[in-house]
């Protein structure tokens, strides 16, 4: 543990940590694993994995159980000690900030890829499943499928995202397209077809009608009408998979996309033009995830099997932020007011 901490903290100490004036309004949670290269199920672990929380010094400290296959978390807006994690064995829920857990799902739901809480109905939790959609109406304690309108086959779901402006309005990114429900998953309809998996769907923090999605082979997609219609976003390669997309909450018009094959792409004009921002990243710029810090606009690039990198000029220059040999599956910024 000390070895892990020193490894993650040291670069920050050398770099002076976070800016002295920064008093983050958000806690940053990372979900992922370190020492990932070559790991298989059943491997002997030499480090702790799962939930990492940014420390006051700017490093990351592991919290709670060792769990190498946590993919993404979603917090209850009423109490940040309550959050749900998509993990290989199902959806885990903690009520004490990540120290103890309960699997809410049973053997009939496995390998959820993402989980989302409805901010307007926070007892409602949605899970993207490899064979459909799971819903909990009791804060993750019990789960049921709600798949009316999804195809019998073709419902591998990679991402589920809730519209923050309307309770029960949820998007699911699947292998056959983008699906929308407006009644808390009682009924789904496809709003955009694809032939490959939709990997991420995000709502703009600046305009709730503005949505972006990225995919495995359909490139990036944009919607300006609240996700009712979608169109390809020009200038984005579609030969390789795009892993996730983020808006910069601190400045409208800034967008970043992560790709294992392509690296990091950014736009600063709301998607009209795009630039690769891989200079300063490792030569194998396998960007698994990107994120933007809502407190200071810092752009993050999580390198698969490498370290976490940050940029304070939206990708023009990069510096490492620890977490070597990691696979960071998701970043979640939680308002400290939720504590």
């Amino acid at each position, binding site marked *: 543990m000390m070895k892990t901490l020193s490894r993650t903290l040291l670069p920050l100490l050398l770099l002076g940590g976070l800016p002295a004036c920064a008093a983050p309004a958000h806690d940053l949670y990372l979900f992922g694993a370190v020492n990932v290269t070559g790991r298989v199920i059943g491997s002997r672990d030499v480090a702790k994995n799962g939930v990492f929380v940014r420390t006051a010094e700017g490093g990351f400290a592991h919290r709670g*159980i*060792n769990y190498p296959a946590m993919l993404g978390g979603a917090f209850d807006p009423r109490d940040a000690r309550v959050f749900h994690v998509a993990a290989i064995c199902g959806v885990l829920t903690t009520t004490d900030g990540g120290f103890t857990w309960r699997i809410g799902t049973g053997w009939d739901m496995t390998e959820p890829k993402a989980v989302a809480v409805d901010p307007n109905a926070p007892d409602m939790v949605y899970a993207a499943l490899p064979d459909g959609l799971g819903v909990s109406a009791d804060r993750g304690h019990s789960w049921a499928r709600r798949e009316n309108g999804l195809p019998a*086959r*073709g419902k591998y779901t990679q991402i589920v995202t809730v519209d923050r402006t309307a309770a029960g309005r949820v998007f699911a990114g699947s292998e056959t397209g983008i699906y929308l429900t407006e009644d808390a998953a009682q009924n789904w309809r496809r709003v955009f077809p694809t032939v490959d998996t939709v990997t991420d769907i995000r709502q703009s923090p600046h305009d709730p009608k503005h949505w972006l999605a990225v995919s495995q082979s359909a490139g990036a997609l944009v919607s300006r009408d609240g996700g009712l219609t979608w169109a390809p976003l020009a200038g984005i390669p579609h030969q390789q998979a795009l892993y996730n997309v983020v808006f910069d909450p601190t400045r409208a018009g800034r967008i970043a996309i992560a790709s294992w094959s392509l690296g990091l792409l950014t736009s600063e004009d709301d998607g009209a033009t795009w630039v690769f921002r891989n200079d300063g990243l490792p030569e194998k710029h*396998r960007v698994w995830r990107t994120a933007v810090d809502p407190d200071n606009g810092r752009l993050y690039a999580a390198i698969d099997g490498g370290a976490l990198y940050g940029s304070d000029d939206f990708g023009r220059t990069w510096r490492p932020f620890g977490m070597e040999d990691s696979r960071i599956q998701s970043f979640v910024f939680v308002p400290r007011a939720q504590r």
Partner: protein
Amino acid sequence: MKKLIIPFLLLAALVSAQPSYTGPMPVPPADTRPDTLRRAYHARVDETLDWYLHAIDPAKPLTREQALVKLVRGQDAAAVSQRIIELLSVPQSGDMFWMFPWTAIAFTGRDQLSPEARAAIREAWRTYFPMRGDTENHWVMYYASLFLMTELYPDDPGETWFNGKSSAENHVEAKGFLLHWMDLATTIGQGEFNATHYIGEYAIPMLYLAAWAEDPAMRQRGRMMLDLLMAELADNTLHGVLRGPNARTDDTSVLERWNALATYFSWTMYGHTPPPSGYGGWGIYFAIAAHHYEPPPLFHLIATDREFDREQRDHKRSRRRWRYSDVEMMPVYKTGYIRRDYAVGSYQGGVTDPIQAHVWDVTWREDDPRGVHNTMFSVHPHASARVLQMYFTEYPDWMIDLLASQGKPSYGVPDKILGCSPYEQVFQDLDTVIALYAIPPGENFQRVNGFFSRNLRDVTEDASGWIFARGGNAYLAYRPLAPYTWDELLGYRQLPRGNSGYAWERFRPEGPVDRILVSPHANNGTIVQAASADEFESFEAFQSAMRALPLEFTLEPRPTVKLTTLRGKKVAFTYGETPVVNGQPVDYSRWKLFEGPHLNAGLGSRKITISHGRQHRVLDFNTVTTSDYVTP
């Protein structure tokens, strides 16, 4: 043989020599009375246990396995208790491979271990959070362990278990999955069928259920599933050696067919082949509870009687497909034909497991199979991120790179001989196999690899287009349908594991090496015919017979073969069409769960009859009963 003798001499000087692995080939007992078989079975189990005990170095702390064996033998409970506390005092890992060993220790030691040691074990099930994994065998290990441990601690609340669920909740969930899996296996067939290694990951949990489950129904079901696994093993092995097809195997076992964990089970159950080195590694976890089980004598007869030819047809299923497929699990139509000198096995082609499936082969008998590559087959070396994505919930572009670092070095190489392809279709009639390939443009490897063992004799490239060879007492004829060249097959040597996971280098083994027939043509095919040397006056007579067989084939627009087999069957097979035998299309819809002289069951029946001669055992999962009867 020489390379076996030298280590044998070296090991003979050691107390911890592994007798059956290094000793001469075992001879199946002529005396097959139940008490004789039973004594021999328990003696083999004891040999495994003894080997672990003898390997104990007083100067070193006990390993987990040694501690467990001491508990089995009722030795040094106090010292073992202390060692268990030590073993659990450090962070744990291993997921479901952690769960079943500690389940075994908990049950074996429940009346011997100190209260402190038992408390340490119980506490570990609260603090260590094993992952459930993503594969069927992972789940069977996970839930069988959880089922048993929640019976051992039946009333504990959620906060005392790693996953936050109470004993009762975990018990219900574990039972639910186990019943579901058993139901699948006895209605549409096993997913990871005839696995050369993963048989252990099923057999061990089933043995533990049979040995320790308090619920009498689950105890009975565990024993019945173990019976089914061991009966299938008996039926699918050639003198103890499991041959293809295999839902999952590996780069070693697919060539040296004997060198597999499955062989440990053949040896333990039936004693007609040597066990692998170290009793296959996981074998010890079977041995520690194996005295709770005995294979019935009729299984022994199925395993050892190879004096009459037999064909067995089974229905299996693919690994679960998450996406990019209209079906959740592809039906697998498996054919096996076994004779004294060789076995031919196949399924219809396509992808059952994206990495480790082995579709077809001819495997011949060797007097001593240790170190021998006693098999012949061909493959399309398919590697595809999209196909991997059908079975794994992962992103596309990193998986192929990753597999080598995760211990599967051959997935993305052009000369691989392990794996299956969506562009291979196979038909088998008795000891004739026709494999057709239609590899679309854009596929990485536009070639077919035929495996030619270093242990073949008299390999002859005949002007007729047939390649003739001898393997053991079998004659083999291999017909490539497109031009080819020869390459040596390099091995994979594991390098010291660094930060990049498993690392490998290719190397040329010393001495004679295996060869691959490389046929770099997209529309392609292979025909293989096997026969016993005893059927012909000479090898030349076999060749003459093969040359005389009527054979027509074309490769464009699709591969098509019309062949009269050595057995007189007129077979017509076109890629993408149903095979036709003597004018009748093969009706796969009539395929049963098991059909053959030894195993029989209807699809969906949950009722399997296992037979040899007049002896029968019926495993009826509808009524959870096992019944034995003898026909008059």
